[in-house]
């Protein structure tokens, strides 16, 4: 039980990081990025490439976001800027296309083998060896939290951060007040890609990498954002951990085959519940 809870929380923190990136660019640009998971995997492959070159893969959490920031920036300039003001449906299609291209490119460059990077961090034992915590998972949770804190401070204090928040609230007003929204969008997408890069590097050392496993990460981050709402970091963190916990427990109690099913049941339940609450509110207004 303790084991499942700890595993769930550590996994959930990682999900929350990816979801935060998604919430950020969804909130600012009104784009649902289907390629989110594939950006994560690409980040993972950057760390894996370093590992192959003999560098410790943990350095990937620094190198990978830097590279991924520019990948995100370039993606924005190439594709996203053409769809950013359009219908939500068009942006979904565009990012879906990007996802497919990324998968095939990764398959082409890195091959279709499942790969792992070894961190050799060992394991921490608790309660007389009955509970084990892989240090690599602890490392990934700590790194995620540090980056999340750094990002929150950056958003609050820096000029760009304020510009991003202003644009999120009202893009037109921000533009009138002299914010270069074009630049803000590019930076937001870059930051999102960088967050994916960090998460990817962490996944390389805790889980496994394969060119085609991006989608589950997209789906999970999508869910977390739906539950938590846009631009609400604490909620994203909590619902991320909640999802991780829920998954592990569903797995432990119901069996692994129901894990994904349970997640979707939860999604449906939450959406229905929200609707129910909303309709109550509407009644007051009437």
């Amino acid at each position: 039980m303790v084991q499942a809870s700890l595993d769930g929380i550590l996994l959930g923190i990682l999900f929350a990081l990816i979801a935060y990136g998604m919430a950020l660019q969804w909130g600012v640009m009104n784009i649902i990025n289907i390629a989110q998971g594939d950006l994560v995997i690409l980040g993972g492959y950057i760390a894996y490439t370093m590992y192959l070159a003999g560098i410790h893969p943990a350095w990937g959490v620094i190198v990978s976001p830097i590279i991924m920031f520019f990948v995100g920036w370039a993606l924005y300039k190439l594709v996203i800027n053409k769809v950013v003001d359009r219908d939500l449906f068009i942006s979904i299609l565009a990012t879906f296309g990007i996802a497919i291209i990324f998968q095939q490119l990764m398959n082409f460059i890195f091959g279709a083998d499942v790969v792992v990077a070894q961190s050799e961090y060992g394991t921490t034992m608790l309660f007389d060896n009955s509970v084990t915590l892989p240090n690599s998972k602890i490392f990934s949770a700590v790194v995620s939290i540090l980056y999340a804190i750094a990002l929150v401070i950056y958003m609050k204090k820096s000029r760009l951060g304020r510009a991003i928040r202003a644009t999120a609230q009202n893009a037109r007003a921000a533009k009138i007040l002299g914010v270069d929204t074009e630049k803000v969008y590019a930076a937001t997408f870059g930051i999102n890609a960088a967050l994916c890069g960090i998460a990817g590097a962490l996944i390389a050392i805790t889980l496994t990498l394969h060119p085609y496993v991006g989608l589950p990460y997209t789906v999970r981050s999508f869910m977390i954002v739906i539950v938590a709402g846009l631009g609400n970091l604490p909620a994203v963190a909590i619902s991320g951990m909640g999802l991780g916990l829920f998954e592990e427990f569903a797995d432990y109690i119901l069996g692994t085959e129901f894990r994904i099913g349970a997640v979707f049941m939860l999604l449906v339940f939450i959406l229905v519940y929200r609707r129910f609450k909303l309709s109550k509110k509407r009644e007051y207004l009437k």
Partner: protein
Amino acid sequence: MNKLTKLFITLISAITLMLSSISTSFAKVDGEYIVLGAAISLTGKYSSNGVHTQNGYNMAVDRINKMGGVEVQGKKYKFEIIYYDDESNPKRAAQLAERLINQDGVKYMLGPYSSGLTKAIAPVTEKYKIPMVEANGASRSLFTKGYKYLFAVLSPANQYLEVAIDLAVEKNGGKPVRIAQAFEQDAFSQDVRLGILDAAKRTGSEIIIDDKLPKELNDMAATLAKVKATKPDVLVVSGHTKGALTAIRQIAEMKVDVPMLAMTHCDAAKLSKQHGKKSEYALCASQWHKNLSYKDKFFGTGKKYDRDFKKEFGYAPPYQSAESSAALLVFKDAFERANSFDGDKVRDALKVTEMQTFYGNIKFGPGGQNTAKPMILFQVRCKGDTCENKVVAPTKWASDKFFHPIPKWSERS
């Protein structure tokens, strides 16, 4: 439209015309060539094993052609293969099979990679009565449908790990064991599971954990937590390369102590290389190993095949390549015995195949599966930091003793 575009269009249409005329001139036997068709996953998620398959086919074609080719009615013929990329997609594979047969006029087929794709192609070859020798579809359901033109050189999936349960019972002094198992939800892994269920029933063993791993999952911590709590005698995991890599990583991280760990796809996952010492003592099912003592006159022994393959492609042959090479040997043998290019005569000859190749003995059962070759088990053993796969069962081929039980993590360095 400017001149350059016009010229370009003319050029393109000329090339297309030329290509289309070439492809129609192919027939089952073209001059001195016997043309075989194959849809192979050169891109997509099966592309690495697809390439292993293609390399195996190519190696055998070269070798057979170099050593005199195929003799039919006193004339020497050479093999040639038309490949298409099926993009790891069953639908595409079925389309390509139609195309090979209808447009390219192929009369004999080689199998694709994986059970799923073979399942997609088999109905097509059956419909057109095209004999297909396949080397990479092990799913049991392929052999229960009554296909008459399908022949597989490999052992069916349910046999993969049955031996492991027998071995566990033997090590337990002949008493039944407690089994924990986790299988991916796909045709192949579920067949492996059926094999374990059979073995459990036969030996009176009890299955205490029976988890299914979703395809997209790369985390089995919950299953392993249950394993830790229930302490089974054997842990069986099968979920392609991802399953093997995930299992080893998390077993090592969570320090799960089980006396015996049996898996599939260890060599495809390059376990001993990717995970090194963490993978030590893992027991793996394999169709083939270079140390087996089978031989034939084209490739010699398994060891020689290993050397030649390394020289040609620069890496050690996984069993997927070896079994693919064997498929060509089977075809050659069948053509010569049929002494004809008639599809049904070739099929009849295939049906009574009984031969030894470097890959193993081949004799087809009523469903088309190979019944003459046992599965082998190897165990990952390490010396210092280099780890190797050592054959431990069946005893006839064993190069090393089976190490049992696996030492506890606290005792491992």
